[in-house]
């Protein structure tokens, strides 16, 4: 856009001139690595930046970016959406949700379609808005569809704590938070998915700090850079990754130091620990099964758990998403290589969440046109 007053801490990191110099620096450094590379950006927000700014095409030819599974909506099982719809269909319930979840397909329909069918589904920007809805509508039950990785968990946890403090009895969470490391570990353990480097999710790190990724780097001998989300952040992070690869290092570097404190966010982590069972994520020693990435609410806050407050449909015979969805999610398959991409799977008729979520790799590739026509 033509920039009027620059947005501070945003526009400086979108400066085209600096970007061109950085791209040149990447091209200059790449020969020192001297081999084809597969680098993963874990987070869907990073995928968006790559494609929106056309960065991938500006990188040296030997570097392939693998889109990771860091899209909390994309990893949501269909039966969880079914659960949200079942809750919303209850006449006493107002289901408050982020916009991201509105178009994700459940077994039969999306939340948007459920709303059209009469379910009271309302979009909120913050879990605190859902709590406010509960206070304004004491005659209704307000259920907040809580999703997201660790970035969003402090907000949910602090909202529950506030609800408890204020004695709000008609508020609960449908808890669908997941933790990053087990999801990441599934990718890194995949023998068919050899990665040379990782751009780590900057806003997850903002909460959990650098330490979890230090263990990953050591265990997998993998160079990692914690990256911000502006194009210059990602370009600088890629340059740092190349530097590690050229020198044979595998460490964690914090490119996003202006936002990410090395120790993470203490008040946020404390609130999360009080409200959620999170031992698996933070005492991870490499032996936790990926299934433990789900997050449960502690017994003390069980009355704020919609899963325990309301009867939910049992695990139905859901029509599973095509197997290609998981392949793409885990980075084994590039979106365009999926035979459904752009033909029977489009944003208008998505076969899975990756084509409908704003952060989904398929949706981003389709929308920003990572297609032959732009060559």
């Amino acid at each position, binding site marked *: 856009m033509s*920039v009027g007053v620059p947005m501070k801490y945003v526009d400086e990191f979108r400066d085209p*001139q600096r970007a*061109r*110099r950085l791209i040149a620096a990447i091209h200059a450094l790449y020969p020192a690595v001297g081999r084809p590379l597969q680098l993963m950006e874990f987070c869907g927000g990073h995928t968006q930046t790559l494609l929106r700014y056309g960065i991938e095409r500006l990188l040296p030819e030997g570097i392939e970016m693998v889109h990771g599974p860091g899209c909390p909506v994309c990893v949501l099982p269909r039966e969880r959406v079914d659960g949200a719809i079942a809750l919303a269909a209850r006449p006493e319930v107002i289901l408050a949700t982020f916009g991201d979840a509105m178009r994700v397909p459940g077994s039969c329909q999306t939340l948007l379609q459920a709303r059209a069918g009469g379910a009271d589904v309302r979009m909120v920007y913050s879990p605190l808005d859902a709590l406010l809805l509960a206070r304004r509508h004491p005659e209704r039950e307000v259920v907040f569809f809580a999703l997201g990785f660790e*970035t*969003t968990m402090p907000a949910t946890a602090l909202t529950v704590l506030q609800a408890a403090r204020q004695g709000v009895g008609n508020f609960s969470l449908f808890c669908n938070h997941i933790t990053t490391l087990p999801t990441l570990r599934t990718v890194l353990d995949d023998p068919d998915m050899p990665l040379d480097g990782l751009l780590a999710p900057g806003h997850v790190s903002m*909460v959990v700090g650098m330490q979890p990724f230090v263990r990953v780097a050591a265990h997998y001998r993998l160079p990692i850079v914690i990256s911000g*989300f502006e194009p210059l952040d990602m370009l600088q992070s890629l340059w740092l990754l190349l530097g590690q690869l050229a020198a044979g290092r595998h460490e964690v570097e914090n490119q996003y130091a202006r*936002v990410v404190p090395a120790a993470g966010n203490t*008040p946020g982590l404390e609130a999360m620990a009080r409200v959620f069972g999170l031992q698996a994520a933070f005492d991870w020693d490499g032996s936790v099964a990926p299934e433990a990435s789900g997050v449960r609410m502690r017994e003390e806050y069980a009355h704020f758990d919609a899963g325990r407050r309301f009867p939910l449909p049992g695990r139905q015979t859901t029509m599973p998403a095509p197997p290609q969805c998981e392949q793409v999610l885990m980075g084994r398959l590039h979106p365009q290589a999926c035979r459904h991409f752009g033909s029977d799977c489009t944003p208008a008729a998505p076969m899975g969440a990756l084509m409908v979520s704003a952060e989904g790799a398929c949706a981003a590739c389709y929308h920003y046109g990572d297609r032959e026509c732009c060559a």
Partner: protein
Amino acid sequence: MCLGIPACVVAISDEENCLALVETGGVRREVNMLCVTDDTRPLSSCVGDWVLVHVGFAMSRIDAEAAHRSLELLAALGEMASELPAMDREPGPYEASGE
């Protein structure tokens, strides 16, 4: 997971619930400051700080020094690397200037 926007704290709006008014680009919103305040950095001292806002919560206080260092590093990188010919793009006839 990712959408976080830097904003400047312009006023304290609710001490009891730890809420402040932040602004970016002329748009303001009330956000919860519990994650960026403590005994050493109370709410009352936050006016003028820049914070990273995610889903109505300030999640990090932006370190101006670190931002500055990052930008300086980028500038230094630029001086080291030589421009590739392909990157020297002629400005198009429609590019706005001096905006």
